[in-house]
């Protein structure tokens, strides 16, 4: 296959390159820091392992843990934003249809529930839209308009927003249990609890990672008011997003 011969060639070329570098020890080239196989543009953003993926998710759910300051050089991975968001969309769909199914099953009503593809497309545009559009807006405004120094890279911001979505998965499963109650009050309490947990934790995860950077950048560019404006805009955007997710849950 063409692909394999290319892979073979890359490994072959990289070895030649290593030979010209003349390592001190025999093992030196094995743990080389500059990653020689990652020359492809796409593969750079998918260069993570399973363990790193899980630690990213836990650090975004456990907002009370100490946050390591992100550095401007980090690229961040795009695996998380794409697939964590896809998971949340699937679970929102699952939760919505599952709640109706449970309710019908327990109340013994025979009316068949027909799912709605608008739910699917709406969830896709809301979640992917928020995860991509807000970071692009944030990046463009900070780097090209305010010309902040030491700001994060675009992919890193997308990565932060994407991993922050992960808390919506348990929240949506919690929302599914409202199907057990035909009582309107209890089910709406459960729904609100789920929405507040999801919105609150994901917002805290985003801000705890972004705010230190924004504050440092604002201080560095002698514009103290800027950090307050950023904070207000980001929080308002997140509240809007949370309300949007709630409307998908009850659709």
């Amino acid at each position, binding site marked *: *296959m*063409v*692909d*394999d*011969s290319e*892979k*073979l060639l*890359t*490994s*072959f070329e*990289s*070895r*030649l390159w290593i*030979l010209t570098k003349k390592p001190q020890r025999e*093992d030196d*080239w*094995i*743990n*080389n820091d500059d*990653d*020689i*196989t*990652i020359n*492809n543009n*796409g*593969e750079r*953003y*998918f*260069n*993570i*392992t*399973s*363990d*790193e*993926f899980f630690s990213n998710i836990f650090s975004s759910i456990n907002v009370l843990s100490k946050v390591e300051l992100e550095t401007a050089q980090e690229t961040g991975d795009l*695996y998380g934003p*794409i*697939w964590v968001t*896809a*998971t949340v969309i*699937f679970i929102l*769909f*699952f939760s919505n*249809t599952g709640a109706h*199914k449970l309710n019908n*099953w327990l109340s013994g009503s025979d009316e*068949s*529930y*027909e*799912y709605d*593809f608008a739910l699917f497309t709406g969830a896709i545009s809301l979640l992917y839209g928020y995860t991509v559009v807000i970071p692009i807006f944030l990046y463009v405004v900070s780097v090209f308009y305010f010309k902040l120094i030491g700001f994060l890279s675009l992919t890193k911001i997308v990565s932060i927003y994407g991993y922050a979505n992960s808390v919506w998965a348990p929240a949506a499963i919690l929302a599914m249990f409202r199907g057990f109650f035909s009582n309107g009050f209890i089910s709406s309490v459960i729904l609100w609890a789920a929405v507040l947990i999801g919105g609150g934790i994901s917002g805290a995860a985003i801000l705890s990672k972004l705010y230190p950077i924004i504050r440092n950048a604002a201080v560095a560019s002698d514009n103290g008011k800027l950090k307050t404006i950023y904070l207000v805009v980001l929080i308002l955007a997140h509240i809007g997003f949370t309300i949007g997710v709630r409307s998908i849950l009850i659709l």
Partner: protein
Amino acid sequence: MSGWKPVSVDPNEADDFDLGQDLIEPDVEPPQSTSAKAKTSQPTQQNPQLASSSDHNNNSFFNFTSFTAPKIDLSNTLNPILQKEQVKELRFSGGDTLDEPVWKTLQRDIHSIGIKLFSVIWPASLSKLAKVQQHNLLIYARNTGVNLGINYDEVTNNLENDISSTIDDSDLKKLDWDLWGPLVFILLFSVIVGVLSPTTSNSVVFSGVFTLIWVTFAIIAINIQLLGGTISFFSALSTTGYALFPLLISATVSIFVKLFLVRFLLFVVFVSWSIYAATLNLKVNGVLPGRIFLAIYPVGLVYATLGWLCVIT
């Protein structure tokens, strides 16, 4: 797949490639002196006197026969580069499929489809092969310096010696990709979902589901390829498509069974079967050891979505 291909170019002479002279094989056999000279395994450049003494048209390297059956001993020249790998020289053995009966061609395709289908129905048959392949990929990753979250210092230095059994290349050849499985299974699956759909617009649901599955499978295959390893795009597409088979069974059953609880249990069983089969197949086809979960997770997500579609309709 991931087997080492023979490298049939001598770096000493690779720069002198000039195919203009000797594209046509000479009618007369090369004189005895040339073949005797080639047996000494010394490149001709180093004995110019010997080369000039023979017929000047009959340069031993640019002879056509030297392309089909190279006589240069690569294992010596490449030794400093390929430290522990073996270099084999193989004749081209593509085989002749022009003259064979059509039935034989079809039979070969059906046989290869059957083998891949069996590897999905009984995934445990691949477990040994998967283990060996993962070990090979670990060696590959160590040699090329891919980040797998493993400290290669802690892994024993002689990974090459740890390997208990070597793989037969033909085992991998049998699992070579094709798109018959994905085509047939996706087609059948969309027909079933279209028939199951509650509305009158069966054809819209059929075409929508058919397109959606192909697009998501393509995205999954790109994702797997971007994660690295030796797997190719079509190999990933083929693997995930063949592993759709258990879901097809679940969809077929749900035509006849309307009970929600039974459908849900079937959903759980058959989706986990699909995911297990896809995992082992991806391991064999060359996903890197530390990234198996990352490769299989989106696949499982799509299988779960498709299965759930059958449960709720």
